[in-house]
């Protein structure tokens, strides 16, 4: 128990194990209708779908930690998709990512100039960015992509991805020209209860992992380090918590906010470029599909913490991946929701909250009945799970969320 309290890493690993076990049990119950609830393919797709949301979420955290609400994330992602695809087409996929990041950063700069420079309301400016960005993308597509073969006003020609990486030994990647054995797949093929499932998840993560995903994942510890372990990060957070106090201590609040919002746009742009280059291999109008908003939701969902945003994005990526791969698996997911509700009810009971426990039991009964009574879930439901989950979290867990104290407030130097 002592060890458990002291090690955050261990706790997270145990939590992850818990998730895998639950999924595994649900999978056994749902066989043979679906085998996709927990599999290498699902894990891989989950990660791929989660990365853009994660990047948008990180972008949101950077901006909001500095006290600027950024609902322009969506528009900045749109800029990222266009500039990413254009860069990839013109100079190759790696440059595509770089140019996509730059495009998003330009959107961030616009938001920063309006909100920090001119003191425009953050929501208003964000809405304006969201209106301007798709218009720009459409105009530029008409000018640039329309004259190329396979391209048009709403679409770019196909672009290459940056390539994937198989980890040596774990997923059979090459090491100095030597094809290492694929250990995880070996475990998966054994079909051992639980062990094979864990192997499948790990294999899905390590197998043909996009280099861009790897970079995105390293941005989480990097953001944590910069924001919480460096003087610069402290200044950024101070600007979001109490700008007047920060200013009195000599922090250049405007500069901090500017940098944070531009970084926010750059991260969103990376997310957009990832969608265009890695996920679909093409720029298509409307392909961001509100992921910027979902990223914003993970910011709240994750309590303004990068790791929280990762969890949120994985959850939403999972819902997205399942729906893409196997509609019947989504139906099996109801079982999971029912189980989760039972667990929550037990917890409420242990804490003596009888009325909450009763509500949760009723809800779980309803969900389980839904599972038993139907064959398939309406196709419209899975895409909106992130939105519903966010609403539920906001409704039931607001008291546990704490946003930066001066978030969203207009700050003018020298005015209280």
């Amino acid at each position, binding site marked *: 128990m002592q060890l458990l309290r002291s090690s955050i890493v261990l706790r997270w690993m145990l939590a992850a194990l818990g998730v895998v076990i639950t999924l595994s049990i649900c999978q056994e119950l749902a066989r043979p209708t679906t085998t996709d609830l927990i599999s290498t393919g699902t894990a891989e797709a989950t990660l791929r779908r989660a990365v853009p949301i994660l990047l948008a979420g990180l972008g949101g955290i950077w901006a909001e930690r500095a006290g600027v*609400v950024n*609902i322009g994330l969506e528009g900045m992602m749109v800029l990222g998709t266009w500039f990413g695809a254009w860069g990839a087409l013109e100079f190759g996929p790696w440059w595509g990512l770089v140019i996509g990041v730059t495009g998003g950063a330009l959107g961030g700069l*616009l938001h920063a100039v*309006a909100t920090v420079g*001119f*003191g*425009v*309301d953050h*929501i*208003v*400016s964000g*809405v*304006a*960015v*969201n*209106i*301007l*960005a*798709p*218009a*720009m993308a*459409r*105009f530029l597509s*008409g*000018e640039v992509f329309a004259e190329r073969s396979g391209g048009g*006003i709403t679409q770019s020609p196909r672009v290459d991805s940056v390539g994937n990486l198989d980890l040596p030994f774990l997923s059979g990647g090459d090491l100095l020209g030597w094809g290492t054995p694929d250990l995880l797949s070996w475990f998966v093929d054994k079909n051992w209860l639980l062990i094979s499932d864990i192997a499948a998840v790990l294999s899905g993560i390590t197998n043909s992992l996009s280099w861009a995903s790897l970079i995105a994942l390293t941005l989480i510890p990097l953001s944590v380090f910069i924001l919480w372990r460096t003087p610069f990060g402290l200044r950024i957070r101070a600007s979001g918590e109490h700008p007047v106090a920060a200013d009195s201590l000599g922090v250049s609040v405007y500069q901090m906010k500017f940098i944070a919002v531009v970084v926010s746009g750059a991260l969103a742009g990376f997310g957009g470029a990832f969608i265009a280059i890695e996920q679909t291999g093409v720029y298509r109008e409307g392909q961001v599909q*509100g992921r910027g*908003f979902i990223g*914003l*939701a993970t910011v*709240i969902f994750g309590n303004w913490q990068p790791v929280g945003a990762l969890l949120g994005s994985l959850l939403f990526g999972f819902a997205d991946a399942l729906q893409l791969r196997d509609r019947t698996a989504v139906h099996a997911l109801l079982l999971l929701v029912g189980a989760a509700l039972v667990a929550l009810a037990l917890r409420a009971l242990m804490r003596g909250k009888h009325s909450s426990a009763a509500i949760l039991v009723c809800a779980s009964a309803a969900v389980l009945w839904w599972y038993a009574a139907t064959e398939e879930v*309406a196709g*419209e*439901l899975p*895409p*909106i799970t992130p*939105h*519903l989950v*966010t*609403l539920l979290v*906001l*409704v039931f867990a*607001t008291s546990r969320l704490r946003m930066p104290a001066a978030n969203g407030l207009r700050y003018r130097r020298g005015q209280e």
Partner: protein
Amino acid sequence: MSIRRVALALAAPVCAFAFSIGLSSLVLMAFGTNPMDAWTEMLSYGTRLETFVETGNRATPLYLAGIAVAIGFRMNLFNIGVEGQYVLAALLAASAGAAVDLPPILHVILIMVVAMTVGSAFAGIAGYLKVSRGVHEVISTIMLNAVALAAVGFLLRSWLLDKNDTTLNMMTPEIPPSGQFPHLNSLVETFTREITRGRQLWGFMLVALAVGVLFYAFLNRTRAGFDLRATGLNPFAAEASGVDPAATVVRTMLLSGAVAGLIGLPEVLGQAHRYDLGFTRGLGFTGIAVALVGRNHPGGIAVAALLFGWLDSSAPILDVVGDAPREIVSILQGVVVLAAVVAYEVVNRIRRVAEARDAATAMQHPTETTDRSVS
């Protein structure tokens, strides 16, 4: 003093528009087109009677959308969910209209009531969540937008489809003639020539005008409207003087949603007479732009809606003539929004500084009209 106020108020939108035209011209020049050709082409096509009719038709829903957003904005409540509210309302109202048989005027009123109730109820969720659970309305309305659009897809596909329809275009049954809104062509034609090309000026424009007048009267002539404005200007002062903030939030959201419910009706009642896949979406977001450019004032929103409507209806000529891509107009609109909000902010600051200076001079050089000179 008041002349300066008016000049400042007008300077902002004019400057913003001029700046946007300039920037769009630069963009066009950067891509090797002569902007003057494009603008003159748009002007000459845009001043024809048919384009004006089209402008009116496009401006009507935009105006309603702008008012719906502005109702919230006036008390610093951001109803980003107008988009979801109006699409859901249009679908349910169109279905309700097709399901019943009523005498002409009653039928239209019923459809409008259904639309307003649906929009109101859906917006009310966000209002309720804000006052009861402290959920910020921006987040909840964004999330509810997705929920509404998914609900529209599901309802249309599984329950509200036209059973007799043989085409694959998903649509609700047609609303009978008693539930259709008459057009205003004959009214316009008494003053001008005949409107050609089968264009019809939607009569719903009159409803939109009435909504604008009611909005103005509500804000300036009623207690509830005063509460709303007071809360927007200074929530603490408003609460101290007896305004119930929770009730005002819920009431404002309900009202905003009710107007949002009407946005889809010009099209449903005036032209399509049903909800189908061709239904215009995205007006909720453009409505935000219109409200921002129009400064949340019923008159300003009208100007903004007409401007956006005119730009949209005269842009297609650019593709026909081939001077410039019509998408330049979308850029123009986007830049106008951003430039306008920045310009208003700057003007606000100039005004505040000027007022402070005036107050300071008044303090230093007391004139005979002030009490200070007497004492």
